[in-house]
């Protein structure tokens, strides 16, 4: 998990924490560079190897939006990637067809990943933001038996 979140600049700044400027100081028309250098074939470079600039929202965080957070249970996960395809915040980290974990700097706690998880019990569940991940894993529910008709 640590190796994937390689850039140590990630998540260091809070959005909206910058100093505000007045109307007469605002520049009209702005070009923001996503990367520090001119980068070609971005689609062939994995995120951890890209030279993100400070303008890229990859280096920012929205973690303070969350009141509940998803916790991931590797033991139950079947790597179906449903959570990956439907995550609106690019916060499910998948590499080589494997689900590695959740990017808590960009997750807003919407809970879509939990809803689309097909395993029994679910391998992603929502817990309070303050909950310790280890304690959350210890509370994991048992497999539900199918109701007999």
């Amino acid at each position, binding site marked *: 998990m640590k190796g994937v979140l390689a850039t140590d600049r990630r998540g260091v700044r809070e959005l909206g924490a910058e100093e505000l400027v007045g109307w007469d100081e605002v520049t009209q028309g702005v070009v923001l560079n996503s990367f520090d250098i001119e980068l070609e074939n971005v689609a062939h470079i994995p995120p951890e190897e890209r030279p993100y600039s400070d303008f890229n929202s990859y280096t920012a965080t929205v973690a303070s939006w969350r009141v509940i957070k998803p916790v991931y249970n590797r033991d139950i996960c079947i790597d179906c990637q449903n959570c990956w*395809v439907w995550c609106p915040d690019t916060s499910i980290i998948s590499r080589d067809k494997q689900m590695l974990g959740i990017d808590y700097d*960009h997750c807003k706690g919407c809970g879509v990943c939990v809803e689309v998880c097909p395993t029994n019990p679910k391998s992603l569940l929502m817990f309070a933001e303050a909950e310790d991940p280890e304690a959350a894993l210890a509370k994991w529910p048992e497999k539900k038996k199918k109701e007999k008709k």
Partner: protein
Amino acid sequence: MAITSIKNLKEFSTVNERFEGAHLLCPGCAHSMIVRELMNATDDNLVIATNTGCLEVSTAVYPYTSWDTSWIHIGFENAATAAAGAEAMYKARKRKGTLKDPDAPVKFVAFGGDGSTYDIGFQWLSGAVERGHDFTYICLDNENYANTGGQRSSATPIGAHTTTAQAGRVSYGKKQKKKDMVAIMAAHGAPYVAQLAPNKWKIMAKGFQKALETEGPCFINTVSACTTEWKFDPKDTIHITDLATDTLMFPIYEIIDGHELNILYRPKNVLPVEEYLAAQGRYKHLFKPENKHVIEKIQKDINDFWEYLQRREEARV
């Protein structure tokens, strides 16, 4: 032409994402699901124009950008114009031989909300499609002006409550029907026009790839469930979209060359439209006894439209 494999989700998930997190869209917003899917469906270079709307104000909040591709923000009506202009310049420079890498594959994409597609940018979109530029226009249809507080647009369906078509003692919300934008764009003779939904990820990714590969102007209308204005819990975005496609409120289909219609998804069990309406706060007034006739009308419209789609698919004209 390099295209990402979408055979199954595991293979699809190996792509390198180009849409970054920490944008400011609401939690559970379907806009970013659709944008991610488009950008993941291809590994060609992308030039994207986005006009004003939720997507634009949330992904380019100074000093941040969430886009790892060339991206331009432009006025409310001009996404199609900007994409068309960039495409025309690209072609001209290719002809003159002034491009740095003339063989690099480039695709031009424009994103607009339903307000800017159905109402404000309609004339400009129509012009760009008529001129036949090689670009793909994607409408993120959340059926209202969500960015400015949920006003009605011509994409808002009949009976929905919006801040400028309020439901109350005198009115049951918007009284007019939704405009059939897909048919209008097909009537332009665009080579590929489709209506897609993010819950059917494979159909959607295939549609995006087809549109990007097709030369000429392509239009795709995508259903984007809005947790704030449709009033449902953020976690239910995919569930609501499932209901939308399974009640046939949003049939998924494509029209090729303006006439060849294919239905891309037929629900196994078609649900009554009440299930879709009851799941959202914007329709809750319809369940009062005096508004029962509106639900009946919505159901009748859906049945008629589905019948129309099936007949057109059979007729191949």
